[in-house]
C-alpha cells in the first residue's frame, strides 16, 4: 500500500479549512439574522385608530402623567355660517356660532351637533371628539393655545353621504415639521391610505392629541339617547383670550408723563 507523501498534508489543511469555515459560516448566519430586526418597524403599537370611541383615551389615562382631571381647551371650528352645539345633560345646547372654545377632559367622548351647514340647509351632522392627550401651554395662557379641531365642509358633506371620517389631530414633531409659516385659520391635513392606521400615521408625524369622528348617524326622533350622547360628559365653556395689543398702538394710547 503506497501513499502520496503530500496526501496527509493536504488532508490536514482541508480539515483546518473546514474547521475555520464553521465559525465563519456561523458569523455570516448571525449577520444575516441580525438584518431582520432592522426591517421591522421600530414602534410597535398595541392599539389601532379604529378602536371603540373612548378606548384610546382610557388607555392614555392608565399611563402616568398629569392628565386626569385636566381640562384641555379646545377650539372647534366649522365652516362659516354653521352652528355648533355640544351635549349637556342629555340634550344639545343652543349653538350660536361656528367657533366654540370649550374645555374638555381626556378620554370621554363628546358628541357635537353641527347645523346650518352651508349648501346643506336642513341637514345635521353629529360628530364626536375624543381628547387623548393634552397640550402644555404656558401657565395662564392655556386658552390662547387650544387644540384646534376643524370641521371642514368636505368632511361634513362626506358624512352626509354616509361615509365615516376619522381625523386625528396631532402636535407636530419639531424635528420633522415643515419650517413654513402656516395660516392660523387654516389647518393642514394629510390623507392616509385605507390600509394604514390613521392613528399610527399621526404618531409618526408628531403627538396625537385628539380624534374627530364624523358620520351620518342621527339621534332618535324623540331626542338623543344617552347611548348616542356617550353619557353626556360634562364640558366647560371658556372665554376666548384677550386680543393681543400691538406694541405701536399701545405706545400711542398711553399718556405721556411729565
Amino acid at each position, binding site marked *: 500500500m503506497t501513499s502520496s507523501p503530500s496526501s496527509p498534508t493536504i488532508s490536514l489543511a482541508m480539515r483546518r479549512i473546514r474547521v475555520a469555515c464553521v465559525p465563519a459560516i456561523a458569523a455570516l448566519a448571525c449577520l444575516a439574522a441580525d438584518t431582520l430586526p432592522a426591517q421591522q418597524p421600530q414602534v410597535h403599537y398595541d392599539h389601532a385608530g*379604529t378602536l371603540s*370611541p373612548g378606548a384610546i383615551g382610557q388607555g392614555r389615562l392608565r399611563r402616568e402623567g398629569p392628565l*386626569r382631571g385636566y381640562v384641555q381647551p379646545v377650539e372647534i371650528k366649522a365652516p362659516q355660517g354653521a352652528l355648533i352645539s355640544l351635549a349637556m345633560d342629555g340634550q344639545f345646547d343652543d349653538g350660536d356660532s361656528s367657533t366654540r372654545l370649550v374645555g374638555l377632559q381626556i378620554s370621554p367622548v363628546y358628541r357635537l351637533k353641527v347645523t346650518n351647514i352651508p349648501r346643506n340647509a336642513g341637514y345635521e351632522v353629529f*360628530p364626536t371628539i375624543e381628547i387623548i392627550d393634552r397640550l402644555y401651554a404656558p401657565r395662564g395662557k392655556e386658552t390662547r393655545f387650544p387644540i384646534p379641531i376643524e370641521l371642514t365642509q368636505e368632511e361634513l358633506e362626506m358624512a352626509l353621504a354616509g361615509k*365615516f371620517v376619522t381625523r386625528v389631530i396631532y402636535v407636530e414633531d419639531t424635528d420633522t415639521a415643515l419650517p413654513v409659516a402656516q395660516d392660523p385659520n387654516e389647518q393642514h391635513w394629510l390623507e392616509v391610505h385605507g390600509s394604514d392606521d390613521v392613528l399610527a400615521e399621526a404618531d409618526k408625524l408628531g403627538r396625537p392629541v385628539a380624534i374627530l369622528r364624523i358620520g351620518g348617524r342621527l339621534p332618535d326622533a324623540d331626542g338623543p339617547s344617552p347611548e348616542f350622547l356617550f353619557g353626556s360628559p360634562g364640558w366647560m365653556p371658556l372665554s376666548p383670550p384677550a386680543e393681543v395689543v400691538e406694541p*405701536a398702538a399701545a405706545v400711542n394710547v398711553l399718556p405721556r408723563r411729565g
Partner: protein
Amino acid sequence: MKYQMARIAVLLAAVSSTVGCFKMPGKHNLPPAPMLMEPGPGVGGPGPGVIGGHSGMMLGGPGGGGYGPGCYGGDGGMGMYDPSMMMAMMPRSSQVYFVGPDGTQVNWDIGGGAGFESEPLVAPGRQNFPQGAIYRLKLSKIPGRQGVELYPTIEIAPANPRTEAFLSHNPIPVQFTEEDFDQVATSNFVTKVIYVPDAEFQELAVAGVQTLVSTRLDPGADPIAEADRRGSILAIVRLGNIDLEVPSGEGAQVMDGVIQQAGYYPGGGQCLGGPTYDGSATYAGSYGGPMPMAMGAPPISGVNVPDWGLAYSGTPIGLPGPPHVPLGVPAGLTKHVIKNNTHVHLPKPVDKMHITVKQSPGMSYPTPPSHMRIVERSYAPGLRLWNPFANKLQQAPGGSNVPPGVPCD
C-alpha cells in the same frame, strides 16, 4: 452485528405496537353533543363554574373625577361620574337606514299578535334596533309592485371593536333593489350582508360599508362567510316570499311595547350567520320584549334562562328510565338492578400537562436603550442678534397700562 441490530429494532417495533394496541382502544366514542355542551356532570346546569358574571359592566376603567360645567374636580378618586361605566350599562343599538325604494313602507312588530303595528316608516327613513337580535319586517307599498307585501328579517350584529366606532357614528344602509324583488318573485331566497370592509379592502381611510348579495355570487358561495372574510358584518337581511299574515299563518311574537324580534342568540354574535333559535316567546316573556345581552340582566333560572340543575333522567347511567317501578301504586320495590354493559374507557386525568405554543410571526422588539449620552453645544454667533423691538413691547390689555421702562405711580 448488522443482523442483530435489525432483529432488536424489529422486536422493539413489535413490542411497542402490541403495547399500544393493549392500551389504546381502536375507536373513541364521545358523549352526545348536548352532554358535551353542559359543564355539569351529565345533566344540564351551570356546574361548578356557575354562569359567569357580567364582565361588560366593569369595563369602565379608572373612574374619572366628578365634574361638570363650571365645577370640575381634580384627580379622580371620587368617581362621581364615569361615562364609560354608564355606557357599559346601556343597551347598544344600531341605526338602520332604509334607503329605498323611495316610498316603500316598512313596519315591524311592537305590540305582539300577528300584526306589524309600528309607526309606518317610509323609505328613506331610519330606525334604531337593539343589537344582537333578528327582527321581522314588513315591506309594503313598494313602488311599481302594487299589492306585494314582503316579510324580510334583519339580523343586527353585535358591535365589536372593529365596528363600534362606525356604528356609533353611522347608520347601516339597507337598500332593497328591483333585482331583489324580482328574485323573490321567482321564489328565490335573497341574502344581503352589509359589512365594513377591512383595511386591505379599502382604498382610502374613509370607511364606507359594502353589501354582498347572494344572487350575485357564484352558486354555492356563502355571502356571510365571504363578507366575514372581507370585513366585519354589520347586518344580514334575508328576503323571501313567505306571507306571514295569512289567517293561520305564523305571526309575530307576543309581547307588548317594544320592537319584537324574530330570533335571538344569547351569545352575542358568536353564532352570527349560523343557526339561531326562536326564543322570544319563551325567554323574553317576563320582560315584555327582546333583551339584548348588552343590558346585562342577571340570569334567573326558569325566567330568562332554562331550568338548570334538574336531572332529566332517572337512571344513573345517563339514559332515560323510570325513577321507580311499578308506577301508580305505593312504592314497594326494594331492589332495582340495572346492569350497565356499556363499554367504558375513561382514561385517568393527567397530572402534568405540557403545552408548547408558538406565535408566528414571532415578536421582536427593539432593544431598549441602556445608555444615553447628551452633548450640549452652544455656539456664540459672530453676529449679535437682538430680540426684535416690537416683541419687547408686546403686552395684553387688562393689566397695567404702563409700558416697560416707565416708572409706576
